[in-house]
């Protein structure tokens, strides 16, 4: 059974689609890197795959089920793009936030010592143990991003969905994070990653998806480097300072 499977997936916030006719299959154990310019629909695609948005036409399946109906939350860890600052003043500690990654496993039951240990380990992994009792609202940008990564790790999910996870994380830690991701992938996890640094994606991912509304390339990193997809994707979007003109 494929982890992710879409058929003619199309969606638009308005009448114009921002994700169009995407046919995509992600097998278990795959590491899919998604690249594309700003506004090309990458985050939207992930939301569709996770069932957070209802497609206009076509369908998205997650572990064989309709994505919008899928509720087996313990199988998925998700780090959204630019995590909400909305609930900022809620007195949630880093420890509590990371522990939430365990909630899908626990359901209505009690949190066990085992859950706590796993949360602690995830915190250690992202180097945030010393801030475990700090409120999330009182963290620096990069520290907050690490907290959300830790929550996804604590979930021990089969599928890790990461939308620009290392945004704002300092350079050395970014490198370490990608090491970790490679380890997890080797260990058998399926990973979906949006990342603007094409170099990193090509180096780490087992498959690359390049999109700009439609899929422009889907295949191995080596083929991607050879292809013109990247130029195509970016060429279709205005550049800063109009470099393309």
């Amino acid at each position, binding site marked *: 059974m494929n982890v992710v499977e879409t058929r003619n997936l199309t969606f638009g916030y308005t009448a114009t689609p921002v994700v169009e006719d995407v046919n995509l299959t992600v097998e278990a154990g795959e590491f899919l890197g998604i690249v594309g310019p700003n506004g090309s629909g990458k985050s939207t695609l992930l939301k569709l795959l996770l069932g*957070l948005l209802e497609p206009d036409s076509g369908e998205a399946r997650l572990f064989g089920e309709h994505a919008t109906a899928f509720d087996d939350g313990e199988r998925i860890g998700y780090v959204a793009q630019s995590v909400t600052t909305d609930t900022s003043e809620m007195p949630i500690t880093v420890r509590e936030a990371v522990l939430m990654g365990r909630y899908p496993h626990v359901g209505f039951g009690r949190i066990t010592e085992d859950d706590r240990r796993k949360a602690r380990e995830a915190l250690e992994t992202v180097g945030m143990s010393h801030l475990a009792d700090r409120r999330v609202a009182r963290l620096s940008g990069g520290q907050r991003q690490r907290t959300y990564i830790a929550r996804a790790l604590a979930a021990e999910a089969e599928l890790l969905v990461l939308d620009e996870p290392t945004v704002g994380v300092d350079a050395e830690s970014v490198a370490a994070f990608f090491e970790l991701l490679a380890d997890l992938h080797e260990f058998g996890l399926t990973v979906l990653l949006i990342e603007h640094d094409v170099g990193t994606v090509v180096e780490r991912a087992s498959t690359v998806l390049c999109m700009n509304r439609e899929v422009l390339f889907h295949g191995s990193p080596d083929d991607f480097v050879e292809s013109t997809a990247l130029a195509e994707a970016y060429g279709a979007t205005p550049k800063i300072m109009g470099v393309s003109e």
Partner: protein
Amino acid sequence: MLDAISGVVAAWQSLLGWFAAAFGIEMLQYGFMQRAILVGLCIGVMAPLIGTFLVHRQLALIGDALAHTAFAGVAVGLFVNAVFDTGVSPYLSAVVVAAIAALLIEVISEKTDVYNDVSMAIVLSTGFALGTVLISINAGGLAVGVNQYLFGNLATVSVENASLLLVLFALIVAVVAVAYKQLVYVTFDETAAKVAGLNVKWYNRMTAMLTALVVVGAMQIMGVILVAAMLVVPVAGAAQLARSFRGALLASIVLAELAVIVGITMAYEFEATAGGVIVLVAVAIYVGAVLIGKFRERRSDVVSVAESGQDESTAD
């Protein structure tokens, strides 16, 4: 079943009665004061319990909003009775209309991407206007003032009232005990909760409707001001003091109970209305909490000792 619960109320009253006799506390010897304290303590637990989840979803004013729709509810009940010659209880119509309003608040927020406070304001305005208009076009039919259906008072809690409130209390405590984790997740991060397989909409709507039940049920027993304030003020105070969410939840209950006990006693001594005094005491406690929080933040800063990189080895 309500009989069994009245039994609980009776047991509580004899306990306090014995207490009053043993220690010669005048206030506690009256049955109505015993019941006032009972329902006061209950609201001191259940209002912050549910209020914590409301406040952090920016629904702090939902108590006030739902109270206004309860006004519409009573008017609707009386109107229907007058026009169709039915015998709908205005208490019931108040609860039903408030529950619908609570649902509407959620639905408007979901569908139109507005802040929660806008949907509350719209529902509040609609409810209030509807009530006013119904009363004005059907003036003759609404035999008695709407107010008597709306507001209770701590000094006039009947045994039946107290029993009803105990039921509400048990319901809220049970729901929060069972769904605590889910509620926290949904409150903190809706998107992540959705991905984690929680039915976020459903939790939000359930919380809103429970709130409607509590606000309308309790305000008919002890007054709207007390209920609406207890949903927010102790929660805000606790957020200033506590470090964790669980800590904040417990602290808010402690602060609320403190306000209830001190408030009822002071109201009795100074011959003032109990609901109002409790709220003022709660506000005073809130101010104290803010000051303590500010002071503590600047001074004894246990957590951040381990914060800077250098002390890393000492952490965790």
